[in-house]
């Protein structure tokens, strides 16, 4: 019964204004206009190397940026990191489904985030070392980047970070049927049996 305060504070829906749905004196059936307009991208959906995973929404470049982010949010160690656990696939699948209204944000912000490190670090995000990546993201999270570098469009970098962070958690800890948590790796990490058998206290 507990809202995630971070998620609540930066919900994408904060950006929606009521006028988006009550336009010209007519009510609009289904999604408000602002949610329905999807960015059309020129690049074709990508394919990751090795695993043969076909992405449906993200391009190869975007997926690579997302992979790097996923490993910063949940780093590899004894148990798989976010990338290996399929967080990027989770996000790709959900941007085409339940989280479709976040698609445009990802398209803009992944590219902006990747380029945005050049000013301070002289390299794009995916080419930074782990330590620099974490420093850069910590700065973004704290509001250190405000459309200053890169093309963030109307999006606030720290808000994107917060939403993306939450999506990584969903992808890592949620049900594998949504694309992430490959082989229930997070349950293995927590020592939770996947199959629950009848028991009594």
């Amino acid at each position, binding site marked *: *019964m*507990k*809202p*995630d*305060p*971070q*998620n*609540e504070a930066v*919900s994408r*829906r*904060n950006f*929606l*204004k*009521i006028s*988006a*749905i*009550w336009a010209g004196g007519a*009510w609009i*059936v*289904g*999604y*408000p206009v602002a949610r329905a307009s999807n960015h059309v991208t020129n690049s074709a959906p990508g394919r990751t190397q090795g695993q043969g995973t076909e992405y449906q929404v993200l391009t190869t470049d975007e997926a690579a940026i997302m992979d790097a982010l996923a490993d*910063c*949010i*949940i*780093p590899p*160690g*004894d*148990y798989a990191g976010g990338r290996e656990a399929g967080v990027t696939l989770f996000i790709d699948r*959900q941007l085409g489904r*339940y*989280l479709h209204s976040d698609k445009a944000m990802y398209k803009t912000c992944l590219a902006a985030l990747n380029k945005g490190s050049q000013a301070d670090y002289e390299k794009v995000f995916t080419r930074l070392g782990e330590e620099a990546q*974490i420093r850069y993201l910590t700065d973004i999270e704290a509001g250190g980047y405000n459309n200053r570098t890169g093309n963030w469009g109307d999006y606030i970098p720290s808000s994107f970070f917060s939403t993306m*962070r*939450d999506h*990584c*958690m*969903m992808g890592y*800890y*949620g*049900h594998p*049927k*949504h694309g992430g948590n490959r082989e229930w790796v*997070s*349950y293995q*990490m*927590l*020592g*939770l*049996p996947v199959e*629950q058998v*009848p*028991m*009594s*206290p």
Partner: protein
Amino acid sequence: MTNQHVNAIVVGSGAGGGVVAKELSEAGLSVVLFERGEWARYSEHGDDELTAQRSFPLHCYFGPDNERYRRVAVDRQGNERIVYPNEWAYHNNAACVGSGTVSYGAMAWRFMEEDFTMKSTYGHIEGSTLEDWPVTYADLEPFYEKAEWEIGVAGDDSQNPFAPWRNKPHPMPAFKHNTEARMLEAAAKKAGFHPFSIPMLRNSEPYHGRGECIHVRNCVGFACPVGAKNGTQNTVIPTAIRTGNCELRINSQVVEIMTNDQGKVTGVAYFDKQDRKLQQTADIVVLAASATETPRLMLNSASRHYPEGIGNRHDWVGRNLQGHAYTGANALFDEVIYDDVGPGASVAISDFAHNNPGITGGAMLANEFIQMPYAFTGTRPPGSPHWGRGHKDFQQENYKRYAGIRGPVQEMPNFESRVEVSQDVRDHWGMPVARISGFKLDEDIKTAHFIADKAVEWLEAAGAAKIWKSIPGTGVSGSQHQSGTCRMGNDPKTSVTNKFGQVHDVENLFVADGSLHVTNGGFNPVLTIMALGYWVSDYIVNEWQKGNSFR
């Protein structure tokens, strides 16, 4: 297509509505039970945390959907925004046959005697519309008993010295505790509290043809894999259908209460699954659409007779929206206390529900339901990292060493916390959506601090290594414990219905859901809503049998 006239329409097949449909159809009235959602099934939803009814970041499997439903949320600065069912600010409960009773935690509390007489017990509270109920605990006691026996509750009040009196014990023995609850039970005794096993709408032994609980961790927020959790969908609603007098009409969104030139209710207008607008006429209409949707329906049913919405002559429809000011404390222990025996919550104390010096009301306190892995990512002591190595280490080290104690603080109702209908935003069918605004009073936050300190005391007695409190914010409550928006009362100027749930001035319109609550107790509300369903039905059936057909 024309529908045949029936004796009674019940709008909403949740806690209150399911009970009413059964009682009226058993008494021989022909009934149509309307439900906007459909049947929810474990086989369809399974163990998917991301769409469960407790943390639903992707969507709410138990309804409603994000495509057709929305509301307007107003924050304390007056900013409005559109919100969707899987956002907390929507204040969702559920939308399926049985509503929240399919996926609930199934705690089965009776309110205490004082909970019905809050004004005379505590006096006037600044800024609050605090009032006594027009019914007493003694009036409702037989109906609590009926709910416990017909729907099925496991419990034992003999360990709880603060439990209200009862005529008959619970029908099933109380649940035993898992490792964590056994540890907390001992700690509560050490602290001088009086712990007991929480009464649950869950089978501790086979009951009415369904099997016993198998203690999975995915209980609250999920449907039960073996049907051992008792909601209206697997008890009273099937009974109602078996009478042959009740038709359950699913996928049917009621949009208006229809009235004639004399101001009598004639039935309802609704949209079916194909979005066709249809009508159903009846002698009586009973609203049980939840404390948000019942007032919305009434406000959307304005007519020449009822220009401000039906039952709203004195502007009380939608007022006094309450939930609970949930408060408590979290703790980490040195040793593993998790044994994967669900559902988790099982030990409680009622020591601080009333009689707290300088405090109005209070709350019961109980250990928490098992937090699923994604939900646990939001459970951190202040200042903890939310990502990176620190996040992952915390998750791995502490998932099985965590316990939480929480309590639903009884809120002081206020007139400005309310459900209105939006002037701007409409739903899929073109109807104005609910607009929710309001706040908690300082009194509620004061009580929340007091109760959280008691949770800390309990966890200290348990020897926790680290403890941190969680105090509620000042925003309006509602959500799963929403109530109060069509308060019952003796004075038509300060209430919406009389003590039988009959809307003042509208003889054949009734309310039978959480909206009726004058106050919401320091306990989860569902058993009281079920008891009110029986109470309201009892009045209707008695009148009917005396020859009053409300026509």
